[in-house]
């Protein structure tokens, strides 16, 4: 495991290009594009103001930089550095901006969600979509880039519009049976749209591409409901995390619940492996170092003997958005594992085995888990908890790696390279790359680890 030098960064804006060749990052009003392999600066663009949002087009040719404060979007081309495009939303303001999947249109949401403007880079044409709903996840493109589902609100009722992305033609428009729609998401196969209601009500609705309601699921009433939703990459499962601290898995045939994963603070199942991060203690406590990296790690994982009770957080009941329930959910790329975080057990990551539909591993960190992300290629989970360490878990074992460099590099967020060969670690105003061994080496190393742990 090697680490690059540390580069400057603002607002955690650092993205790998979808083809994996480049890395774009923003420092104040400068956009820097580097080659991933050599980390040499390829292009340097200067924007009009401090960038607040950065996004690669799907074909990795263009980079969008949004400056919401000024209502401005600037687009840069990697192929033609002299080409430039500037979109000004004027007095309408700007709160969100994103690429369409073809990489030739930009969707800008104006302030107060008055409308969405679709700007084309190919023609002069501008399209407007009225009544977009201001919600958690109101826009969803299907994975193949063919369709856009958009949540709308008209006359105090929720609607979903499905657009064909190639010509922005409205394909379907239907109302949803929700009180206050909170989010929508396409299944990876692009045929089913999951719609969920606001947190005040537990309701998950599933719509077919042609607007038919396939199923509705409600686990309970009179309590805070859905907090997070994730599709498995195989489209076979829909995982719904809710405020009651449970994840419910729906199947794609009957859309009924397959199983529910409770997140108890006490783990007593002897089949579950509990990795507990521990401060580095003199070697020999377990007879072996938990981290064989080239630098001595300051923490290591120990296998705790079940039953284990995890640290829980008492949520403030009188505040909005209480810290309870399953707030983070992610399926591994092969759909074999599901990683979750229960917000009132902030230090733990649960990894569930989706083949046996049971808890597989629990990782208890020393600090609260900020985010985690699966390697796009393998069942390998990278976790960061706001400290100077990055944690990797695979079925073979897990490691804690100290990020080298002077000063404290607090990893607030991370993102994987598309091949899983490297990992960008983002702190408040710096970032660095972490190169993992090539596949064979990595497998060997992990295998070794597995033998250790």
């Amino acid at each position: 495991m090697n680490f690059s030098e540390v580069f400057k960064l603002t607002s955690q804006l650092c993205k790998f290009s979808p083809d994996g060749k480049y890395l774009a990052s923003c420092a104040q009003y400068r956009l820097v594009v580097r080659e991933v392999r050599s980390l040499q600066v390829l292009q340097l663009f200067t924007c009009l103001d401090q960038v607040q949002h950065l996004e690669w087009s799907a074909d990795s040719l263009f980079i969008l930089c949004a400056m919401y404060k000024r209502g401005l979007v600037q687009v840069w081309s990697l192929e033609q550095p002299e080409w430039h495009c500037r979109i000004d939303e004027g007095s309408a303001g700007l709160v969100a901006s994103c690429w369409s999947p073809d990489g030739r249109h930009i969707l800008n949401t104006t302030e107060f969600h008055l409308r969405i403007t679709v700007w084309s880079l190919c023609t002069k044409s501008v399209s407007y979509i009225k009544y977009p709903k201001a919600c958690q996840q109101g826009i969803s493109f299907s994975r193949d880039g063919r369709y856009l589902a958009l949540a709308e609100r008209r006359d105090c009722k929720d609607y979903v519009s499905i657009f064909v992305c190639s010509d922005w033609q409205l394909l379907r428009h239907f109302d949803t049976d929700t009180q206050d729609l909170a989010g929508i998401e396409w299944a990876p196969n692009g045929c089913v749209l999951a719609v969920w209601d606001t947190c005040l009500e537990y309701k998950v609705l599933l719509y077919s591409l042609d607007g038919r309601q396939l199923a509705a699921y409600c686990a309970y009433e009179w309590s805070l409901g859905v907090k997070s939703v994730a599709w498995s990459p195989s489209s076979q499962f829909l995982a719904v995390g809710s405020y009651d601290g449970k994840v419910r898995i729906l199947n794609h045939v009957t859309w009924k619940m397959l199983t529910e994963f409770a997140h108890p603070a006490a783990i007593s199942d002897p089949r579950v492996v509990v990795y507990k991060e521990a401060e580095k203690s003199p070697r020999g406590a377990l007879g072996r170092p938990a981290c064989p990296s080239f630098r001595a790690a300051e923490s290591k994982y120990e296998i705790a003997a079940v039953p284990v009770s995890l640290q829980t957080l008492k949520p403030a009941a009188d505040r909005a958005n209480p810290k309870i329930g399953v707030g983070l959910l992610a399926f591994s790329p092969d759909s074999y594992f599901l990683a979750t975080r229960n917000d009132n057990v902030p230090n733990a990551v649960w990894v569930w085995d989706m083949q046996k539909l049971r808890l597989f591993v629990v990782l208890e960190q020393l600090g609260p888990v900020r985010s985690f992300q699966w390697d796009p290629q393998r069942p390998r989970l990278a976790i960061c908890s706001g400290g100077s360490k990055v944690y990797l878990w695979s079925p073979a074992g897990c490691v804690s790696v100290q990020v080298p460099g002077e000063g404290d590099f607090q990893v607030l967020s991370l993102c994987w390279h598309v091949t899983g060969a490297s990992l960008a670690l983002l702190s408040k105003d710096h970032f660095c790359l972490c190169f993992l061994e090539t596949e064979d080496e990595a497998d060997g190393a992990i295998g070794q680890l597995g033998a250790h742990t």
Partner: protein
Amino acid sequence: MGDWMTVTDPGLSSESKNISQYTSETKMSPSSLYLQKVLCSSIPLSKNVHSFFSAFCTEENIEQSISYLDQELTTFGFPSLYEESKGKETKRELNIVAVLNCMNELLIRQRKNLLAQENVETQNLKLGSDMDHLQSCYAKLKEQLETSRREMIGLQERDRQLQCKNRNLHQLLKNEKDEVQKLQNIIASRATQYNHDMKRKEREYNKLKERLHQLVMNKKDKRIAMEVLNYVGRADGKRGSWRTDKSEARNEDEMYKILLNDYEYRQKQILMENAELKKVLQQMKKEMISLLSPQKQKPIEKADDSTGTGISDVEEDPGELSRESIWDLSCETVREQLTNSIRKQWRILKSHVEKLDNQVSKVHLEGFNDEDVISRQDHEEETEKLELEIQQCKEMIKTQQQLLQQLATTCDDDTTSLLQDCYLLEEKERLKEEWSLFKEQKKNFEKERRSFTEAAIRLGLERKAFEEERASWLKQQFLNMTTFDHQNSENVRLFSAFSGSSDRDNLTVHSRPRQKPYRVSNGSPICTSKLTKSLPASPSTSDFCQTRSCVSEHSSISVLNMTPEETRPNQVGGECANQKWSVASRPASQDGCCSECSWTSTNSHVEKDGLP
């Protein structure tokens, strides 16, 4: 309570009456004064006997007394004290015999009376104590009654309290329910109100938004614009198309195509899954049939089982004709048939397995019985052997005693000494012969011992080899297991476990019938079963049988034949203690055996002395 008082001997009472009569009559007697005195002091009677008699009868009034007594006695029905007078004038003579008889009679009566009195007194005492006891019982019971009554009252009170509490709780529950209902109503009303408010707010918000939209969007805002250096081509290289009805139709078509593709894909998957399941089902069925069919040939099988298989076979036949096609048919047509036959076969299998279980348990029982028998036989053999040994020893002792006697007697007479010399010579010869025999035996035993040690060594080697083999096999197995990648490892483990268990099952199944013929043919099931039980890792049972017999023989012989060189008088006890283990199971014979052993050892000692 007064009943017991009345229970008195009627004879006694009548007697007492008699006595009273008698006393009343005595008043007429001349010495009634004395008599009264006597009656008053009746308890110290024995003391005053002399004085009483002397007082009653004096020199002067003998006649009177006699006549008085006679009168008295006659009234009581005694014969007269006087002799029958022949004439009226003649003075009546005192009949001494009658007097004595009367006295005797009186004494007897007196004794009887005393006895009766004693009896009555003891009965009285008994009854008194009985009464005391009953009174105490009565008091106790009364107390108990009181306490239980009090307890009952307490319990009733508690019950009442609990009921009261329960009522209160019910009331509380009802109140709570009402509260919940009220709260739910409040929540519902609040929710509707909230929704209403929300809608109102949203409408206002929408109005504002609309207004804003008009203000911001409709006015030509110069700033809302896009500056592009030059328009770029589309990613697919095509030109943008106009939105027309045609394009709309095309979009619809495409959407349905996508949906259709998805459904087709899913159908294909389901079909594949179905086919797989069908395959499994078929395989299961086949295996069931193959598993169950060999049983049919067994004549022992139960009638219902055979009919069951027969039916299933009958049902099989049409399927057999078009086996391939039957699986291609939609499930609905075949389902019933298939499930029925599977269910039937499953039932058969189940019953079969149950039967097997029963058999196994039976075999277990039999096995235990066998073991019992074996041990008994073993014991019997052992006892026989020991008895034989004892017999031999006894004989030897007898001859030795004879020899000693002969030796002792020879000292007396010269002629006899001469004879004795001859005897001695003869004896010497015989002893020599015996000595050589012993030596030969010893040699044989040595040989045997050597062979046994060799066998033991061989056995050790064999075991070692087996251990090595097993270790290597385990290693290989483990390596095989570890070569699988992680995701499969669980399955593999499962599979291996399954196969392992099946192997074990096979083993047990095979080993059982193998044992049976062995027992029958060998005719000595003692060693095999015992050994296989105690040493599961034995290379071969027959080898062990040999070695074991060798061991037993050797041990018994070595104990018996303590060579003279080895035995010392002070070691005898130790030897005996050592020997105990072999006879420990028979405590009755133990002592005898021990004594015998000591006998033999001392004997041998003597023998050694006697030898040149």
